[in-house]
């Protein structure tokens, strides 16, 4: 099956899909029986603890591990010299060493790893490793790094440019000439930690079946981990088996960093011939793991007096840290979506990834969208103010409609362009229009004042022109009618197992409880790429449905004999196969399976779903970037304490077009969780680096929302079924966390007239308009 048009099913007939069924992994998780990586032990297991860089950028003159090797309980100390294969890994370019050899590039670099009988013994021996460093000049400021003549951190990367994506549409110079109003603004965003509650963990078990290295871990993308471990060990892919354990959260975070941990464990397991476990402490996690990119974004917009946007020019620097990681992919989504869901005839966008000696950055829920949406949606409110217009009117005037043309020249067709619908639903739910006018009129400089704001977006579904986009599912019906489901995409906590099981049960007509969804195992299922980009339901769901259809065909043939009708007269639901026009004439699903087995039928199938074709011209930034889009809008009411700078989020309405809600309950969970994360981005969260040194190291300083911080949330599920996804479903995970920060910034302006262009809107910025954090220099608009 390919992603062609398919008739969209009639919703009323759904038996399992579109219902808020229980999560299939719920019982294991409420009883404590779910096994997370650190819950596993193996005979003769050893523990690895990593020594990290002392300086963000330094030459290693000498590395002496002898004393540590002699310490009690220590089996060996691993360094780069022990790596049998590739020294470095990376999803785009292999430029991140698993162990550094000659120099450190950021504070999280691994210099060596002690392998010992207990974690405590490993920890104690770390202090016995002697490293002599020579500090090197370093770059921590992204604008400095990108300037002419800047120190180059990597050879062959002038101005430290990891990648550059241009996008050209029309002629911006002409556009600005034709504009009655032109605004130029700079916005900046901060370094953000995923803050999954389970820190990274992996176990490498050598020689389970001959010379296969088995990896168990908290791994978002088992196939990526396998590729990296195989290359570091210097073996073929089939010599590494990766099994995903229950994941304690990921949000894009347990990818490259976990690949590195898996590789370290594997090198140690190979050397010692024993299982090796590595579990990060929270401090290690925050210091080593990659983050969401801080962006510096310069926007220039021109519009006519009546509010039509004529031109937009965007220049963005994304701080990549020292390694490429996902920066080329993250910034690609930024270039596609940088000007927002608005029809603009003239666009010039340049997005650069830039190397620095800060903590490296990569994939995080949102993936290059939260930053640009903060800028572009703040800018829309600023433009409305400049024009003397209502921000809602301005957006509706310029917003995408059916058949609109995007900045990359893509015509929006083949799906419902529901921008206006989501905007109206979200803003109506909080009474935006009335309140916005009332609050704007009354802005006392003291005490607590209220404001409303909103932000909206369009978002390309799945990977787009980023890369290979195909997913496999293996569905196998057992002789007793029970079902195994294996998927190439992985459960990260989001509810994928449940949604996929629902799709399988719906299509196959079996009972949901008869399906067992196995943890992802790279030795069982074909490489399906990564569980990222909110692509699971659309892509993975498509492959589940495809597999189920193949198996159903076989089962209907068997059932047709039992029921004495032709296969096309049969339907299946609720664990029964029955004659369409005579539902009383039925046979149990399990009896069909039993009969099929005795007849020697193949009751298993590999389902495959390949995304429809997309295109991109690297030179012009033009093309059909994604095969479909989702639309979302979040509106918020806040209370600002003008005397303390405290912003309290009172109520959020979140309207998201999801195509079709496969499971409305877990879908709401995605919305609530995304809203909380978006609130943290807007108000609370920031990893502070002081000259490359991580100052924020645990949850006492990295502040995420508690149960007492989250506002009332009105989830509004908009369903415009999409021809590409299973039952019309598309994506929701990421849009939910990309909108609230700018909505809050707009609401704060509405409340007290302060426009804050730098995240987060912490106490100091709201009170004084600038950050006072001791650790960090001023940035963006704070420089003036």
């Amino acid at each position, binding site marked *: 099956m390919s992603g062609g048009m398919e008739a969209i099913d009639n919703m009323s007939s759904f038996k399992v899909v579109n219902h808020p069924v229980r999560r299939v992994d719920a019982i294991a998780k*409420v009883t404590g029986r779910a096994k997370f990586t650190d819950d596993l032990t193996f005979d003769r297991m050893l523990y690895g603890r990593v020594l990290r860089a002392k300086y963000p950028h330094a030459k290693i003159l000498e590395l002496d591990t002898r004393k540590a090797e002699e310490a009690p309980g220590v089996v060996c100390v691993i360094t780069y010299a022990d790596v049998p294969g590739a020294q470095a890994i990376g999803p785009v370019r292999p430029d991140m060493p698993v162990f550094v050899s000659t120099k450190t590039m950021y504070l999280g670099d691994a210099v060596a790893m002690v392998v010992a009988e207990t974690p405590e013994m490993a920890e104690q021996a770390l202090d016995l490793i002697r490293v002599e460093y020579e500090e090197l000049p370093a770059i921590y400021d992204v604008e400095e790094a990108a300037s002419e003549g800047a120190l180059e951190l990597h050879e062959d990367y002038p101005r430290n440019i990891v990648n550059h994506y241009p996008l050209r549409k029309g002629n911006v110079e002409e556009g600005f000439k034709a504009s009655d109003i032109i605004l130029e603004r700079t916005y900046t965003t901060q370094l953000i930690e995923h803050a999954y509650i*389970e820190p990274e963990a992996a176990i490498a078990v050598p020689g389970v079946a001959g010379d296969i290295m088995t990896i168990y871990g908290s791994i978002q993308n088992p196939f990526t981990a396998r590729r990296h471990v195989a290359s570091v060990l210097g073996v073929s892919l089939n010599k590494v088996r990766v099994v995903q354990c229950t994941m304690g959260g990921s949000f894009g975070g347990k990818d490259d960093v976990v690949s590195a941990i898996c590789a370290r464990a594997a090198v140690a397991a190979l050397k010692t011939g024993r299982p090796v476990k590595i579990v990060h402490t929270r401090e290690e996690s925050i210091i080593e793991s990659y983050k969401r990119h801080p962006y510096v974004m310069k926007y220039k917009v021109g519009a006519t007096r009546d509010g039509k946007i004529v031109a937009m020019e965007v220049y963005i620097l994304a701080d990549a840290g020292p390694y490429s990681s996902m920066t080329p992919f993250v910034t690609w989504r930024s270039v596609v979506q940088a000007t927002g869901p608005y029809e603009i005839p003239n666009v010039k966008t340049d997005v650069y990834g830039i190397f620095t000696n800060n903590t490296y950055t990569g994939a995080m829920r949102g993936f290059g969208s939260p930053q640009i949406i903060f800028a572009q949606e703040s800018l829309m409110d600023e433009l409305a103010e400049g024009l003397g217009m209502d921000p809602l009117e301005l957006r509706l005037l310029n917003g995408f409609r059916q058949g609109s043309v995007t900045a990359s020249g893509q015509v929006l067709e083949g799906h419902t362009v529901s921008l206006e619908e989501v905007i109206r639903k979200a803003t109506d739910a909080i009474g935006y229009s009335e309140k916005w006018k009332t609050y704007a009129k009354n802005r006392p400089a003291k005490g607590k004042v209220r404001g409303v704001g909103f932000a909206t977006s369009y978002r390309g579904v799945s990977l787009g022109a980023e890369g290979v986009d195909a997913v496999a599912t293996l569905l196998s019906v057992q002789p007793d009618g029970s079902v195994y489901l294996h998927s190439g995409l992985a459960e990260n906590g989001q509810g994928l197992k449940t949604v996929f099981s629902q799709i399988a049960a719906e299509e196959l007509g079996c009972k949901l409880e008869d399906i067992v969804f196995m943890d992802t195992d790279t030795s069982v299922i074909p490489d399906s790429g990564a569980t990222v980009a909110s692509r699971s339901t659309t892509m993975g769901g498509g492959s589940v449905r495809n597999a189920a259809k193949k198996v159903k065909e076989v089962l209907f043939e068997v059932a047709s004999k039992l029921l004495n009708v032709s296969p096309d007269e049969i339907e299946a639901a609720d664990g029964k196969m029955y004659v369409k026009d005579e539902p009383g004439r039925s046979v149990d699903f399990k009896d069909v399976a039993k009969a099929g087995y005795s007849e020697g039928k193949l009751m298993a199938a590999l389902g495959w779903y390949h995304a429809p074709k997309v295109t991109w011209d690297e030179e012009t930034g033009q093309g059909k970037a994604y095969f479909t889009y989702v639309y979302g809008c979040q509106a918020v009411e806040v209370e600002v304490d003008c005397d303390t700078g405290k912003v309290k989020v009172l109520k959020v309405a979140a309207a998201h077009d999801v195509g079709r809600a496969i499971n409305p309950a877990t879908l709401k969970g995605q919305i*609530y969780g995304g809203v909380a994360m978006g609130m943290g981005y807007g108000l609370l969260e920031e990893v502070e680096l002081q000259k490359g040194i991580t100052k924020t190291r645990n949850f006492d300083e990295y502040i995420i929302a508690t149960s007492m911080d989250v506002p009332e*949330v009105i989830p509004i599920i908009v369903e415009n079924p999409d021809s590409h996804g299973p039952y019309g479903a598309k994506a929701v995970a990421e849009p939910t966390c990309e909108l609230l920060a700018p909505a809050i910034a707009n609401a704060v302006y509405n409340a007290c007239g302060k426009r804050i262009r730098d995240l987060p809107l912490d106490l100091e910025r709201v009170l004084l308009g600038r950050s006072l954090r001791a650790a960090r220099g001023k940035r963006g608009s704070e420089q003036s």
Partner: protein
Amino acid sequence: MKQVDRCKMKLISFTVNGTDVKVEISASDRLIDVLRDKLRLTGTKEGCGIGECGACTVIMNGVPVNSCLVPAFQAEGSVIETVEGLEQSGKLHPLQEAFVDHAAIQCGFCTPGMLMSALALLRENPHPTREEIARAISGNLCRCTGYHQIIEAIEDASMRMDPTE
């Protein structure tokens, strides 16, 4: 006066989920280490090690505590309850049922600690308001759910546990 014991290692006894246990502990062991590593009760999770995330929450002598901040020697003679003790003879506790029914679980790593904080609350306040529930779980960080369905589940559980109200 009787000499007070100076201990480096000690065999301590306490009750876990209704069972008496004896464990040898050292001065630097924490309660979470004893539960997870020595008793293999791995339902209790460690997320931060400094009492900020609450994933390691257990009930000690009736009150919720962060087991990463309890020196193991203080557990001597105490009554400890962990997530493994909630299910009784194969039947889920009403709180567990409610978490399942309300989709109050995503990745599940905070869930055990969250359940223990909720249980401690409902025992002393069988009919809490939403605000009281939010306060009771404010020491349990969750990055996935945004808390709403958890709060709904606890509210629902309070009614399941005491249907007379």
